[in-house]
C-alpha cells in the first residue's frame, strides 16, 4: 500500500463522516430495525408470545351439564382456552350478526335440550357460523367443535352399548345407569385436553435458536453493511461525474493507487460500520457477540466481501443514480434469500440450499457460530473462506470493468 492509497482512502473517509444522512441510514436504521425485530420476535422464538386470541361468540340455549362442560371445561380452559376469547350472546341472531359483520370469527349455537339429547342417546345438532374472510382462524374453531362432536358421538355409542349390556346382564338397574352416564361422558374433556398437551410438547422440541435480537443484530448488520459499502463504492462514480477522477488521473498517481485508495476506504467504511453496530448492540441491547478475535476476523471477511460486491455494483452502474437504484435490487433479494429478513432456521430445504449463494448466509453462519460459543478459527473457516472468495471474484470483475470505463 502506497502513501497515496492511504491519502485517497483517508480523504474518502473524511468526506463520508461529514455526510450525516448516510450515517443515519447506515447506523440508526439498522439499530432501530434490530430493536423492533428483536422486540417482536423474541417472545415468539422463546415460546412466550402472547398470541392474538380468536374471538368467538357462544349462545347457550341449553344451559345443561354437557353444554356447561363444553364451554367451561373445554373451550375456556387449557391450550384451547389460551387460543380462544369467548363472549356470550343471548340470541342466535345476535351471534350470527356479529360473525357476519366480521367482529367475531365464529358463532356457536348450543340448542335447547342438547345435554338431555346427548345423555339419552338421541340425535341433536350444534350450529356454527364462521367468517369466510378469516378462513384459517375459523377453521381452527370448526376443528375444535367437530372434534368435540365426534368425541361425543363416539361416547354416545359406547355408553349406549354399555348401558344396554349392563341392564340386560342385570349388573345395574336402568336408574343406576342413567345416573352414571354423565360421568362416563365427562371423560371427553380429559381426552381433548390430553391431545392438546401432546401437541404443545411436540412444539417445544425444536432446534436451539439464538435469541431473536441476537439473530437480527447479525442479520441487519450484514444487510446494512452491504448497503453501506454500496454507497461507499459509489464514490468512484461521483468522482467520475464531478471530474475529480479525471483530475486525479492528470496527477502523477497510478490507477492502482486510485482504485486501491477507493477500495481501502470502502473496506474501512464497512469494517467501521459493522464494528460500531457490534458495540452499540452490545451496549444497548445486551447482544453477546462472542470471541472478539474471531469477531474481528469475521467482520473483516464480511467487509471485504461487501467491498467486492459494492465495487461490482459501481462497475455495473453508469452513474451514482443508477448505482443507487441497482444496489437495493441486488442487496434486498440477497438479504431475503440469505436470512437477513427471514430466519434461516425456518427455511425449507430448497431455500436453505439456495441461500448458500448469498453473502448474507455465509456471514450469518460465521457470526452465529461465534455467538454460539465458537472459540477456534476452524469454526468459522468455511464462511470466511467463502466470503473472501466471493469478495475477490466480485472485486476482480468490478475492477476489470472500471478500468475500461
Amino acid at each position: 500500500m502506497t502513501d497515496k492509497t492511504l491519502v485517497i482512502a483517508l480523504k474518502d473517509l473524511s468526506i463520508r463522516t461529514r455526510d450525516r444522512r448516510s450515517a443515519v441510514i447506515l447506523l440508526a436504521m439498522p439499530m432501530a430495525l434490530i430493536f423492533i425485530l428483536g422486540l417482536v420476535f423474541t417472545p415468539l422464538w422463546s415460546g412466550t408470545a402472547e398470541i392474538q386470541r380468536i374471538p368467538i361468540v357462544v349462545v347457550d340455549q341449553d344451559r345443561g351439564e354437557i353444554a356447561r362442560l363444553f364451554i367451561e371445561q373445554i373451550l375456556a380452559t387449557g391450550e384451547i382456552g389460551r387460543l380462544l376469547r369467548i363472549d356470550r350472546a343471548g340470541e342466535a341472531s345476535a351471534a350470527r350478526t356479529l360473525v357476519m359483520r366480521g367482529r367475531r370469527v365464529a358463532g356457536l349455537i348450543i340448542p335447547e335440550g342438547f345435554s338431555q339429547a346427548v345423555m339419552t342417546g338421541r340425535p341433536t345438532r350444534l350450529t356454527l357460523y364462521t367468517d369466510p374472510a378469516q378462513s384459517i382462524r375459523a377453521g381452527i374453531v370448526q376443528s375444535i367443535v367437530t372434534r368435540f362432536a365426534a368425541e361425543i358421538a363416539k361416547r354416545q355409542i359406547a355408553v349406549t352399548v354399555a348401558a344396554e349390556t349392563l341392564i340386560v346382564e342385570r349388573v345395574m338397574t336402568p336408574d343406576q345407569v342413567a345416573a352414571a352416564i354423565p360421568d362416563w361422558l365427562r371423560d371427553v374433556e380429559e381426552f381433548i385436553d390430553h391431545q392438546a398437551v401432546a401437541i404443545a410438547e411436540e412444539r417445544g422440541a425444536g432446534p436451539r435458536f439464538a435469541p431473536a435480537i441476537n439473530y437480527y443484530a447479525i442479520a441487519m448488520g450484514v444487510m446494512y453493511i452491504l448497503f453501506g459499502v454500496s454507497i461507499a463504492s459509489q464514490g468512484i462514480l461521483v468522482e467520475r461525474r464531478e471530474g475529480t477522477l479525471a483530475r486525479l488521473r492528470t496527477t502523477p498517481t497510478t490507477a492502482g493507487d486510485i482504485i486501491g485508495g477507493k477500495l481501502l476506504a470502502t473496506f474501512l467504511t464497512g469494517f467501521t460500520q459493522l464494528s460500531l453496530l457490534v458495540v452499540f448492540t452490545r451496549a444497548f441491547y445486551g447482544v453477546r457477540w462472542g470471541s472478539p478475535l474471531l469477531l474481528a476476523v469475521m467482520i473483516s471477511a464480511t467487509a471485504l466481501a461487501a467491498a467486492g460486491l459494492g465495487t461490482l455494483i459501481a462497475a455495473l452502474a453508469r452513474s451514482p443514480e443508477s448505482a443507487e437504484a441497482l444496489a437495493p435490487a441486488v442487496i434486498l433479494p440477497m438479504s431475503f434469500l440469505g436470512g437477513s429478513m427471514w430466519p434461516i432456521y425456518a427455511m425449507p430445504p430448497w431455500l436453505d440450499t439456495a441461500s448458500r449463494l448469498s453473502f448474507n448466509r455465509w456471514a450469518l453462519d460465521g457470526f452465529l457460530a461465534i455467538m454460539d460459543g465458537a472459540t477456534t478459527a476452524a469454526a468459522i473457516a468455511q464462511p470466511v473462506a467463502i466470503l473472501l472468495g466471493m469478495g475477490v471474484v466480485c472485486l476482480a470483475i468490478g475492477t476489470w470493468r472500471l478500468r475500461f470505463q
Partner: protein
Amino acid sequence: MDPLVVVEDLTKHFNGRAAVRGVSFQVLAGETFGLLGPNGAGKTTTIGMLACLLDPTSGDATIAGHSIRRAPMAVRRAIGVVPQEIALYPTLSARENLRFWARMYEVPGDIARQRIDESLDIVGLRDRADERVNTYSGGMKRRINIAVGLLHQPQLLMLDEPTVGVDPQSRSNILETVKRLNQVGLTILYTSHYMEEVEFLCDRIAIMDLGQIIALGTQTELRLQVGERDLIRIATQVAKLGTTLPAALRALPGVDDVHVRDDRLEVLTSYGRRLLPQIVTQFVQHDVPILAIEVKEPNLESLFLKLTGKALRD
C-alpha cells in the same frame, strides 16, 4: 524561445469518429498559447491527450521533453491542469482540497503548506481558505480550481475553458490572474470559445474547428493569413475632399483602397493604426477637416466566420 510543447500530428478517434484530426503546433516557453474554437471543435480532447487522460489514436506530443505516449508520469509532473469542471471536493474546505491535491502532486508536507498559502494568495482567497468549497460562489470555486493546478509549480499550466459559467467580475479576476501568472514566467496553454479572452491573454493562437487547426499564428499574422484588412473611417466635410486627397491616400504604402461614402472617407489597409499618422498628415496638408476617426480591425470572430462560414458560438 525554445518550444516547451511540441504537438505532432495528434489524432483521436472515438468509436470510429475523429474528434481530433492531425493537430500539430508548438507552445514556446513563457508564452500564452490559445486554442480557440466553438464547442465540439476538439479543444478539450486535445488538452485531454496532452494531460495524458486520453491515449492518442496516432501522433505524439512532448511536454518539457517527455513524450505523452512513452513517459506519461514525467509529463504529469511537468503540467498543471485546470479542467473545465470544478473538480474539487465540495464538502472539504479549500485548504483541505489543496492539501489533498498537493499530496497527489507529490509536494512534500512542509513545502506543501507554503505552496498552499502562495496559491491561495495568487487567487486571492487566503482569508476564506478554511470554509467549505460548497459555500463558495461559482467564481471562487473556479479560482480554487486554478490554485490546485499551481501547487507543484508546473512548467506548463493548461486551462480548459476556466471561465465557463462565471459572472463578469469573477471572469475578469480569473483572466487577470492568468495574465499575472504568465508575466512571472509560467507557460500557459489556454482553451476557450470566447474570442475576447484569447485576444486578451494569448501571444499566439490556434483556431480549431471540427477537430482540425484551421489557422495558427499571432493575432496580426492570423489577420494577414486570411486576408482580412483594417477599415479606417474618417468623418469629414466630403465637399472639401476633391480628388487630390483620395489620390494621395491611395499612394501611401500599405493602403489598399480608398472609398468615399456619405459623409465619410474609408481607407482599407492591413496596417490600420500604424498608418494613422500619415493619413492625418495628408488631411492637414490638403486642409480638409477631420471630424472623427474610427479604426475597425477585423477580430478573430470575423476571421472564424470567414474561414468556416459560421459564427464562433454556433
